[in-house]
């Protein structure tokens, strides 16, 4: 992993002085998840507009997790998080309730604190005014994310009518250190049949997960996190990466499968391995990916094809087997890895952006596929921003520094941040979240 020299420097006493006198960004060390740690430190303010129908299920979930819940900001002003339920908003004038709840909480918001806004999907609004109010929540949340400092994040959760019971998993994720590098995002929660894990510290116990591109970088971290959460991991990567793959598989007590995801029989080999060796297939993470950066003016057909083939077309081919009979079980989870580049576009990354935007399109289509909905299979994507890996370590220093700092959290993310988000999307309790594309980018200004 590339050393974040700037990040280390500003954490020294002298560094801090220089930074504050020059008004340079001052990134904090983000709060990250540990299985035994509380979801969040400090009291959580839960309030909202009108009847605030989601406030009470969220309150009882938090109370049962031994978290102190308050109806308003306490006298000392200190809060760990604020949850504003605007799901009953009918008109833009109701947005004042949000201001009234959130604004007083911001001053005393803890380092790496959380702002969570809850609303309903604008598409389902019954009046124009209601749609306007619902849509406004997105602009508000993204702006709060940009206003926050010291590792705090702001995210919006849109809960479909009738899916109130499914909101738990998303609130837990957004409050916890799992979402350290997720900010300015909109997560939509719909219907589905969530089942609670027996043990929240091992939500994937008994599950079998396949991770492609697992030999290094983000994929290796996904394998570790899924295994930590209880899953048996099948680590897949190119035969040529087999030695690194073997150490990942051995470290997580899983198995290594050397296969090029572009091979015609890759899907079959993956499904056969998972089902014969481990007896089932619950989770598939399509993480393998490559870049072959060149300006479009200099891109030949071979380069173009290799990027689209590895990053997108291989997924389409493998899915035929993975989503077919005897593949992923009903109620299973498919997670794809897109990229902020697929949303924002990048000079010199036309083929890469094509493939990653394609992944977003594929995710949306599969997420709303009625056959998959009937089978209870969720399909989501994460779109990483700047993550510290061997891939990004090769970017020239200037560009790399800009990539890190041009985000609300003012630093690069770690592979584990992407992995934690994927692990959350792989939980059965998350059955209501499908067709979502969640950026893990520290609210990067790119494509924002």
């Amino acid at each position: 992993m590339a050393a974040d020299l700037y990040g280390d420097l500003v954490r020294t006493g002298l560094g801090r002085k220089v930074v504050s006198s020059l008004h340079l960004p001052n990134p904090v060390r983000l709060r990250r998840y540990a299985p035994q740690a509380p979801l969040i430190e400090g009291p959580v303010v839960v309030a909202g507009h009108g009847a605030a129908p989601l406030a009470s299920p969220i309150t009882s979930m938090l109370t049962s997790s031994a978290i102190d819940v308050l109806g308003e900001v306490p006298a000392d002003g200190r809060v760990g998080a604020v949850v504003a339920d605007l799901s009953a908003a009918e008109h833009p004038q109701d947005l004042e309730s949000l201001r009234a709840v959130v604004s007083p909480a911001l001053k005393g918001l803890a380092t790496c604190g959380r702002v969570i806004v809850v609303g309903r999907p604008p598409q389902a609004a019954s009046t124009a005014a209601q749609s306007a109010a619902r849509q406004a929540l997105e602009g508000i949340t993204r702006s709060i994310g940009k206003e926050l400092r010291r590792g705090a994040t702001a995210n919006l959760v849109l809960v479909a009518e009738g899916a109130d019971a499914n909101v738990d998993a998303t609130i837990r994720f957004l409050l916890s250190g799992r979402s350290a590098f997720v900010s300015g995002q909109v997560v939509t929660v719909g219907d589905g049949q969530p089942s609670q894990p027996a043990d929240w510290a091992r939500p994937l116990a008994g599950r079998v997960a396949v991770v492609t591109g697992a030999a290094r970088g983000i994929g290796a971290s996904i394998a570790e996190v899924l295994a930590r959460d209880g899953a048996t991991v099948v680590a897949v990567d190119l035969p040529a990466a087999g030695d690194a793959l073997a150490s990942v598989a051995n470290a997580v007590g899983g198995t290594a499968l050397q296969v090029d995801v572009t091979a015609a029989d890759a899907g079959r080999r993956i499904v056969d391995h998972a089902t014969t060796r481990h007896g089932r297939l619950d989770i598939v993470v399509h993480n393998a990916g490559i870049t072959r950066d060149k300006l479009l003016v200099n891109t030949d057909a071979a380069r173009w094809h290799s990027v689209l083939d590895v990053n997108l077309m291989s997924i389409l081919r493998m899915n035929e087997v993975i989503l077919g009979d005897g593949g992923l079980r009903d109620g299973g989870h498919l997670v794809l890895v897109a990229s902020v580049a697929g949303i924002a576009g990048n000079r010199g990354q036309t083929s890469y952006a094509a493939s990653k935007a394609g992944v977003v399109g594929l995710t949306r289509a599969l997420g709303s596929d009625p056959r998959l909905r009937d089978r209870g299979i969720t399909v989501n994507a994460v779109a990483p921003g700047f993550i510290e890996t061997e891939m990004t370590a090769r970017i020239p220093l200037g560009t790399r520094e800009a990539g890190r700092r041009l985000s609300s959290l003012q630093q690069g993310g770690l592979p584990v941040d992407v992995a934690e988000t994927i692990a959350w999307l792989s939980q059965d309790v998350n059955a209501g979240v499908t067709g979502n594309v969640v950026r893990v980018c520290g609210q990067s200004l790119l494509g924002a």
Partner: protein
Amino acid sequence: MASTPRRAAILGGNRIPFARQNGAYAQASNQDMLTATLDGLAARFGLAGEHVDEVVAGAVLKHSRDFNLTREAVLGSALVPTTAAYDLQQACGTGLEATILVANKIALRQLDAGIAGGVDSSSDAPIALDEGFRQTLLAANRAKTPAARARALARFRPRQLLPSIPQNLEPRTGLSMGDHMAITTARWAITREAQDELAAASHHNLAAAYDRGFLDDLVTPYLGLTRDANLRPGTSLDKLAMLKPVFGRGEGATMTAGNSTPLTDGASAVLLASEDWAAAHGLAPLAFFVDGQDAAVDYVSGDEGLLMAPVYAVPRLLARQGLTLQDFDYYEIHEAFASTVLVTLKAWEDTEFCATRLGLDAPLGSIDRARLNVNGSSLAAGHPFAATGGRIVASLAKMLHERGPGSRGLISICAAGGQGVVAILEGA
């Protein structure tokens, strides 16, 4: 007492790509290579933290400090530290002999799962002290008084500082293996063209196997090597014809660096188990171990060629199993030299040899050459002595599995000291 023998299944294998001497693995020890190979096997079969009863492996070129080579490799690997391990060594037969041992123990219910393997480094070879110098040091060590010690050390001579590097020589004849083979090659009149043809086929077959992905679940890269360094996919009869003979003398010399295996570094391992253990671990057997046989010849007196022992072992094995030489889907005859394979086949076709030497009424006959070393062999892959057996067993087991249940394969490996090990596998 549950003592009925049962079938031992071969579940798969792993090896690292073989490197040429002083190549990619120049700095790797036998222990390093064997550990990496066991780790790759553990990852492929999910053995990290699982109990495997025994690991049996060995090396031909071995440092005295490696007295517990296999156990040390196990302790450094992902296998649980409670895995028993020991070394076994029979020159180039080591890997196959280890397989036979583990299979027999499984058959006798002494083990449920075991790993057989082998490793050799020709680069990181042990270097011994000059024998005179060694005797001097031992005498000084035994001396009881300083004066006696000084007297003992005074026998040291500076030229004794020259180390003795191990050579591929037969101790009783002083001839290299290649020189021995050259005598046999000439005796059986094996042509240069036939040898070069076999060598070219070996390279082309192995290259095609890699391209087809056949080795995807047999090999794990190591120290930057992803394919065998000796493999020359583009070799041709013309290119091979240009090489000068390196063994044998004068006109009749036919053995070149192209049709002889080079010195190589590498390691391999095979996972064997009872059918119950395999089923309990979600592993489908690739093949079953059927039977094995050793033989040795008197090469010292010149009565028989050094590498001819497998020729004698195979008919004994066939007789015991009630099979003929033609009853096999695949033949894996280790290519120590191209001519070793060709002499072996020719001897089995030779009526007089089969009658006088093997005591057979009729010759064993010829084989369908299209079934011989179909995914390449040692000429292309290289031959780290003790690692060859595991390479062959794992890849033959996979071929037989692809061929289907009941298919049969014959393995023949010649070894230094005039020995040979042969075995039969059956597809599962």
